[in-house]
Structure formats: structure tokens, C-alpha cells
């Protein structure tokens, strides 16, 4: 994993991207925020968010990785897992 991509920095990136697809104030976004119930993201917006994250962090996600993700923390976990895989490849 890149030394600059810590849990906190990935969360910060995710939170910044969420601001582009949700009207929820940034301070209200926590790792336990649920994409649908708390951030009002439908499945399409959630996929857009993950696609943006894929591009920004170069994650090379597979759709299977992301379809079950329900929370912000889940997104961070998926991203960190992919970064770990890539770093060890």
C-alpha cells in the first residue's frame, strides 16, 4: 500500500467524493453512514460514487467487490483491501 494512503486518507477521499453525489453536509458523513438511508444515495448514485473512487485511487475494482457495500466504512474497507492486493501483487 502507498504510505500516503492510510485509512484516514482514504476515508477523507471517500467523504470528498460523496459531496459530489449527496446533499448531506460533509461533517455529517461518518464511517457508519449508510449510503441509502443516511446519504440518500440510490443504487445508481452509489455505483457512480464507487466508479469515481476507482478512478481517483486507481483501485481496479470489480463489480462483485462493490455491489454489497452499504456504508461509508464499507467503501473504505473495499478500497483499502484493493490497495493492499495491488501493493502485494
Amino acid at each position, binding site marked *: 500500500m502507498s504510505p500516503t494512503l492510510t485509512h484516514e486518507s482514504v476515508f477523507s477521499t471517500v467523504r470528498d467524493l460523496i459531496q459530489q453525489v449527496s446533499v448531506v453536509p460533509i461533517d455529517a458523513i461518518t464511517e457508519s453512514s449508510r449510503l441509502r438511508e443516511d446519504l440518500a444515495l440510490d443504487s445508481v448514485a452509489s455505483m457512480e460514487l464507487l466508479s469515481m473512487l476507482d478512478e481517483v485511487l486507481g483501485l481496479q475494482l470489480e463489480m462483485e467487490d462493490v*455491489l454489497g457495500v452499504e456504508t461509508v466504512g464499507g467503501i473504505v474497507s473495499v478500497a483499502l483491501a484493493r490497495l493492499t492486493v495491488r501493493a502485494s501483487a
Partner: protein
Amino acid sequence: MQATILGAAGFLGINLVDALTAAGITPRCGHRRRTNVIPLRRRKVPLVLADIADPESLRAAFSQADVVFHLAGHYPRHGRTPEATVAQAIAEQQTVLDAAAAAGVKRLIYVSSTATVAIREDGGPSTELDIFATPPPFGAYHAAKWEMEALALAEDRFEVIVVCPGACLGPWDLRVGTSALLVAAAHGRDPLHPDGFVSPVDVRDVASACVTLAQMEAPPRRVLVSGPSISIQALLVRVTKRYGVPAPSPAVSDPAALAFADAEEDRVHGTPERAALAREIVDLVIHGPRIDATLGATLVPGGMTPLSDTLDAFDAFARRMRFIP
């Protein structure tokens, strides 16, 4: 051949990318500014911004293209404001056609819908010749599709081919659109539904037909691509048997289905939820013609995929994506 796909990130778009690539053609994959391009990135195909809200991006994406596949006709998300929906559909379609003309596109293959196919008065199955003379008064979806197809067929600055696919099923229906009823049935949810005909088609066959049309010297002007038409009740029975869940309840009346769909649209309006039954699906089923897609079948090398194989392919995809257990 230089080909650009408008709407490459969608259900048909991803399958068209695969079909073109298999034919040795690497398409330029146009997508909206905000959309999910993860499946396209995995395919290592060139991506280009092609957003109808940004006409200059369309012209750039279409430049040098021999063929443009237009898969991005407006899809109404609800039927609550039909006049505004139709106006938006017309404006967006005109934007795409103007951009294609400005870019010097030679051929544009526009994917329309069987919503534009009229039921024959003699009771026979409908063919390419059967088209509503005026916008069908069935709802926003039908009206929008009719207006967009009419604009495409009136285009004289370049060659336009209109493809009217039936209800597309198969892999990469990530939004679970057409297959929503199947997914509900597979879960044993006994989805409320009206009576009428649907014409399922394997999305990969539609993609394959589009590739053929792109390469033909003298393609047909309008072509229907679908498998055999069957009643929605029969289709749901088949799906419930496949998944070992109770058979579906009988279809409800047309007014009951319309009222339910409209109430669902009202319920989910402004929320991230989806309607349990989409209004356009009700309209498509109630007014669905039986289709004779003999011409379309000639465009699919190897012949049309049997429905059982299509359902197998959808099942494998849906399980992989955990849409169904």
C-alpha cells in the same frame, strides 16, 4: 472501422463493447460525466466523455467515427410529468443528431424500443412495417420513445438505422431494469403484474445484430430484434419453476396495475427507493404487441439465443452480483 458508442456504460452498451471487440473492432466508449464505468475500465477500452448535456463532448466523441451507436435515448425515470419528459427526450435526441451531423458521422445506429411498434389490426404479429402513426397515448415512456424514433427516421444528413429490441435480458443489467420482475419472482416475492405480451431477447443478440448492421452495405432502415413473444404470466411461471418458489398469482387488471404503478411512483418520489412496479413496464406489457422478428434474426450470426440459455446467462450474472440467492 472507427466506432463510437454513446451510452457504453449501460446494459446494452457493455454487451456491445464485448460484441465489437469480439469482431475485431475497438470502440470508443462514450459515457456521461457521472456514471459507473468500472465494467468498461476492466475491459481496457478507450473511454471518452460523451454527455448529452455537453454537446461539444458529443462532437469530439463522434469525430472520425464511421459509425455511432446511439444507446442513450432518454429513459424516463417516472411518468409523473409526461409533457416535460417528452420535451426533454426530443431535445436530447436533436442534440445527438446535430452532433453526429457536425462530426461528419456516416452511419448512426439508434437503439429505440418495441414501444414504438403498433399492434396489427388483423391480429397478426407485428413487423418492421408496423409503427404508430402518431405518438401512442399510453404514457410518458411510449410517447418519448415514439418522438425520438420519429426524429431519427426523419434525419437526412446521414444514414440512420433504427433497432427496436424487445425486453433485453442477460448479463450486465446492473440496474436491474427489465429484469426487475424476474428478480422479484426469483426471490418468491410474487410481483404484482398486468396481463399482456412481452418479447424477451438476449441482450447479446441485440449487440450482435448492431455489429452486423454496422458492417452491412445496405442495411434495413428499421429492424425489430426479439425472441418469441410470450405472456408475462407464462414468463413468470417459468422463472418461479426455475427457482423453486411458489407460482405467481394471476395477473391483475390493467387499471389496477396502472394505479399500483402510479402509487408506487408517488411513494418513492424524492427517495432512493425504487418503485416495486415501474409505470413503463406496465405500459409495455399492457400494450405489448406480438413480434415477428424474422428480419432481426438474420442479423445474429449463429441464430437467436433460446430463452432458456438467456435465463441461464442472467442467472449466472445475477448470482455473481448477488441480486438473487
